[in-house]
């Protein structure tokens, strides 16, 4: 994976650039001490690290604008950063880039329950947004598993999902408006606490644009009333085909679960060894959760169990109380930790049409033999988002490269069967060089045109999303 070489002219002007930033920002908002900036050299894609030129941590929209104006004037690339939890290298800097972190913008500005929105600063963590409204019986639906740490800013940049998204949608379906600063320092409000775009849907364009169109400092988010309750059921099957057919039948019966999670045998075995959740040792396991009142939950689970029985499950277990519900979820929630205990692993997030699951799992099994690396699979069966976990040994020379090559083949397969490269994590640097598998030249050109409009100088996070040779003509030399 290549990063553009740092611009020597920028490196030469570093003292002057820092002085200009310190002119317009409080002294503690500009960091260039080598040990302090090291904390910003990578995000959760820890295989790739590069210390930035400097780090700026503003506290207000005005400070963000002031910082961007200086960088714009100096031609310095800027890499926006929320909490740095990106698994795709979205916040990975180059040596000539300024990291602009929004974590100090973390207030709740207004919670409006009658109008069902919350207005927050973008550096606030995802879980603490729900935290701010749950006493009134509300929640913010998109819940990526990093929600304890990840920031709304990052959620907006990557259009994050989460376990709830089958029923409640992803970030873009729950975002009402943003306050955003463009690279030249212009502050724009796109949308607000009302529905629908007045003209072109610029908000929909900004969400998922990976920090390349502007820096979001505030957001208006939809909040929803908490359901009365929720309960899971666990089902074991002796093949992934049967598990997939069961999912299709549940959906065709008109049930809309809030979550449908799938785990394959390697994942079940590793998880059971680690978490002892009492999972059946079988080929494929489903956890299905439904919401509503007790009676509604009973009705839905009754239907689901009836459907499941038609598929000869090896295990069918409904939680009868909160403790049992916790045990059903325990294994699934420990899965990544369980894999991490055995090995280093790479987590992919390609998406496939749900009907293609058996074929894709079979091919992944074959590729696992070819590459000599084990894989365990977690899958959001309701929406097709796969999480193949490829196990490797970071200390063994060549393993990372082999793992990446295997991952690339899996993602190409996802596209081949009608899916896509990334369902949740975003392109960043991790899938940048595979973009040509999913898009042709005209498709990429159309996306780059959009960046040309918002950031004509291509200074915002320029080394991400588009293969470097494809974006070369637009990026600073």
């Amino acid at each position, binding site marked *: 994976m290549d990063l553009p070489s740092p611009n020597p002219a920028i490196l030469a002007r570093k003292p002057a650039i820092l002085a200009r930033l310190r002119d317009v920002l409080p002294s503690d908002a500009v960091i260039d001490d080598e040990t302090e900036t090291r904390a910003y050299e990578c995000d959760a894609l820890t295989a790739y690290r590069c210390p930035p030129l400097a780090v700026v941590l503003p506290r207000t929209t005005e400070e963000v604008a002031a910082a961007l104006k200086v960088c714009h004037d100096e031609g310095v690339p800027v890499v926006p950063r929320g909490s740095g939890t990106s698994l795709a290298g979205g916040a990975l800097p180059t040596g000539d880039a300024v990291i602009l972190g929004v974590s100090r913008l973390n207030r709740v500005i207004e919670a409006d329950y009658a*109008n069902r929105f919350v207005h927050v600063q973008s550096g606030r963590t995802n879980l603490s947004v729900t935290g701010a409204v749950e006493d009134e019986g509300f929640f913010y639906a998109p819940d990526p598993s990093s929600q304890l740490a990840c920031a709304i800013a990052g959620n907006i940049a990557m259009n994050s999902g989460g376990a709830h998204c089958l029923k409640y949608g992803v970030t873009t379906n729950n975002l009402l408006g943003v306050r955003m600063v463009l690279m030249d320092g212009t502050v724009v409000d796109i949308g607000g606490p*009302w529905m629908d775009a007045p003209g072109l849907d610029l908000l929909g364009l900004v969400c998922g*644009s990976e920090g390349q169109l502007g820096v979001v400092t505030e957001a208006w988010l939809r909040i929803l009333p908490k359901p009365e309750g929720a309960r899971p059921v666990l089902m074991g099957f002796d093949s992934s085909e049967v598990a997939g057919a069961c999912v299709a039948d549940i959906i065709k019966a*008109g049930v809309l679960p809030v979550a449908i999670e799938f785990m394959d045998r390697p994942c079940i075995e590793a998880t059971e060894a680690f978490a002892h959740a009492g999972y059946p040792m079988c080929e494929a396991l489903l956890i299905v959760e439904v919401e509503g009142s007790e009676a509604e939950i009973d009705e839905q689970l009754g239907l689901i169990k009836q459907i499941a029985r038609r598929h000869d499950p090896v295990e069918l277990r409904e939680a009868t109380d909160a403790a049992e519900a916790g045990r059903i979820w325990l294994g699934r929630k420990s899965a990544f930790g369980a894999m991490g205990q055995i090995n280093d692993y790479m987590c992919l997030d390609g998406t*496939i049409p749900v009907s293609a699951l058996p074929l894709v799992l079979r091919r992944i099994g074959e590729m696992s033999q070819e590459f000599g690396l084990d894989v365990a699979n977690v899958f959001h069966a309701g929406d097709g*988002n796969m999480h193949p976990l490829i196990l490797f040994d970071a200390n063994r020379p060549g393993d990372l490269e082999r793992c990446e090559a295997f991952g690339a083949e899996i993602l190409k397969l996802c596209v081949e069967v009608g*899916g896509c490269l990334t369902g949740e994590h975003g392109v960043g640097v991790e899938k940048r060089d595979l973009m040509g598998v999913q898009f042709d030249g005209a498709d990429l050109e*159309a*996306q780059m045109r959009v*960046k040309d409009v918002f950031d004509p100088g291509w200074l915002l996070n320029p080394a991400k999303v588009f293969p470097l040779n494809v974006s070369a003509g637009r990026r600073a030399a």
Partner: protein
Amino acid sequence: MSEAMRPETEQDLAEAIGSAKGPLALRGGGTRGVGRPVAGQVLDTGGIAGIVLYEPGALTLVAKAGTPVAEIEAALAAEGQRLAFEVPDWRGLLGSEGQSTIGGVVAANASGPRRVQAGACRDAALGVRFVDGGGTVIKNGGRVMKNVTGYDLVKLMAGSRGTLGVLTEVALKVLPAPEAMASLCVGVEDAGAAVGAMSAALGSPFDVSGAAWRPGRGVLIRVEGFAASVAYRAGRLEALLAPFGPVEKVDAPEAVAAEWAAVREVAPFHDRAGDVWRVALKPSDAAEAAARLGGDVLLDWGGGLVWALLPDGTDARAALAGIGGHATLMRASAETRARIAPFPPEPAPLAALAQGLRARFDPRGILNTGLMA
């Protein structure tokens, strides 16, 4: 004036646009004509039609843009599914004729009462293929619900009314059609109290799928789902809404459907003179907005959408100054639509971004020229 062009394939459409000598007036079903009067050679998209793929177990449908909505809705109904965002039929409201196409629905982001719960058309759109103003075929998104690969031009195309490109194919997320439905009518005659009732209902855990106010009829609250669940939730909502006024429950399917068709189609404004405005705002501002506008109103989306019938030539935006949100002129004479911008004027930086996008996607400015100006 030459005849309408009606290409039968995406390639033919691309060639027609690429070789166009002047402005093109795009037409799907011709039922949702909103915006500045547009001149040009008519380009009809109805020849690019047909369902391409439908997987009920995956909640996914892909169709060519010229496919009639009626055909899609029938195919979905046969499998017990539907388009959750509730396609509105605006022919009675706008006085138009024709068969709405799915491409037109996406291009207009046309969404009905259930938008308040299930999201708008743009939230159900998974992927698009389109031809830009230069005649280039572009695709974005795909056919899966979770897709963050590159920029989301699907959202950009939804609601762009052909001004950035002509849709040739759309992929949509579909949802199960419910087994049962019920509608409550609460006798409330004051707009402020109506919004209070709707907010109470929408803030409850009883999964309300429609919240509207028809002055003269009352606040309408809809629930859908499995029969026992609907009965339970309707009962809980009846109790919740009782303080706001007398509550009547409707649960015969045809009656519930008719009640909500009237809201969706804005029936109170059919066959009546006057201009029609559509205002999006915070529900708590709806009563103030209605009072300032002064004409007949219908509230939808819990009060987040105000339909208003006003005397010909009224500029509603002047009355609404200071209230956050935006107002669209939906029905008015060509003369009025030339004088008053049908689409909301935007602050300069946003207008510049929109202008920049149009300049790049349609450099010759030939696609529905000036429609959204």
